[in-house]
């Protein structure tokens, strides 16, 4: 993905003269942007938001800084701003996933079942923890944890200094860790997985 994205800037530059070239950027990145939006706001909202993301990017392509070869941070930044306008969808999505995570699945080996159940319990705690984070902290945490962006890329995506990225990430991780550590589930899970 990163090597393919290396000439994003060239694609954007050529799309200023030949707009149809912008379709290359869509084909290259839309699936991942869609998945990011679906993770955060649900598939139904993602259908619309991915279109809005690329329409906004297309409209702003003249202002893209061509010194950045990889356009993913730019696209994730637009997508994240759009998610910000759909906070209720995002919080509802976390509730749905929390409810789904709370339902135990598959029978099997006793220890494995116990580990699965405990992991599910941790997940069901993770979603409300995410929902409770300040929006800016959550944006940083999820861009790094889910989309594997670097600190510098998140800095570009959200137009904030790298130092702010670090501090927001630290704050978000601390809060999430506190929620997970304050439960028996975390300890049980560590114990079971350590014994495997």
């Amino acid at each position, binding site marked *: 993905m990163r090597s393919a994205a290396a000439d994003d800037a060239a694609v954007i530059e050529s799309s200023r003269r*030949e707009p149809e070239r912008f379709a290359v950027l869509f084909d290259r990145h839309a699936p991942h942007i869609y998945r990011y939006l679906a993770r955060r706001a649900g598939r139904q909202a993602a259908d619309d938001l991915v279109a809005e993301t690329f*329409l906004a990017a297309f409209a702003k392509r003249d202002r893209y800084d061509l010194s950045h070869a990889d356009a993913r941070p730019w696209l994730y930044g637009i997508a994240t701003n759009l998610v910000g306008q759909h906070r209720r969808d995002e919080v509802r999505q976390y509730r749905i996933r929390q409810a789904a995570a709370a339902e135990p699945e598959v029978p099997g080996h006793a220890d494995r079942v116990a580990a699965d159940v405990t992991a599910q319990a941790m997940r069901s705690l993770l979603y409300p923890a995410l929902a409770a984070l300040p929006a800016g902290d959550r944006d940083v945490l999820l861009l790094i944890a889910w989309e594997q962006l670097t600190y510098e890329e998140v800095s570009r995506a959200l137009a904030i200094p790298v130092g702010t990225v670090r501090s927001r990430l630290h704050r978000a991780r601390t809060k999430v860790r506190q929620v997970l550590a304050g439960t028996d589930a975390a300890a049980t899970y560590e114990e079971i997985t350590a014994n495997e």
Partner: protein
Amino acid sequence: MNEMELLRELAQEEPLPAPADLDAARARLAAAIAADPAAARPAAVAETAVSQPGPSAVSQPGPSAVSQPGPSAVSQPGPSAGQPVEALRPAAPAPVLAAARFMYGGAISTAALLIVAVPFAGDVKGTVLGHRLTPTPLIITLVFLAGLGLVGLWLWLARATTQGRNWARTGSAVLFGLASYELLSAIGAIGKNGVANAVFAALTWLSGLGAVWMLWRPASSAFFKSAREMRSRPPSQISGP
């Protein structure tokens, strides 16, 4: 397992979308690209050459203007200079095409009812929307004309929905409400009018249900929104949100 690993594990649960999931977004982007002034620039010269100016005219370079890979790709007709905006509307996504097929099915079932009813036209003493009908030749003719009108209405709505006309979507929902009433009436009158009438009413209702369901899917909404934007703004002003 720390919180970052747990988050990454959660992220694995959301798969990449199927190509068809991106059709609506691709269609909206293709519409914006087609309407972009830069895309229109080369053909604008041709437009002047063929003397077809005016705000309703738009131009676009050749048929390869928008790269659309795969079978689910959006078809952009790539009209020559001077063609109306209508020709540049985004291609209908799969749910809208499915809705149109349901409507064609409704037209077929309505036509079938008319054909089946011909031999019994003089015997039927039915009710339409609660009004009792006496089968005089005039009434029979009017009822058949109304039936033909219904077939035409199905076909007209099917065509309008694939063109992105939002009123067709709203009209379909209203007509589905009427079809629901008609179905209930037919079920209530099975003793008088027989089962066949109720069966045809049920087929019509099912066609309407399928069409309305498909027309209000997110991909369909995005398509109607995109088509509306294309119609409501001069092409030179469309370059994104």
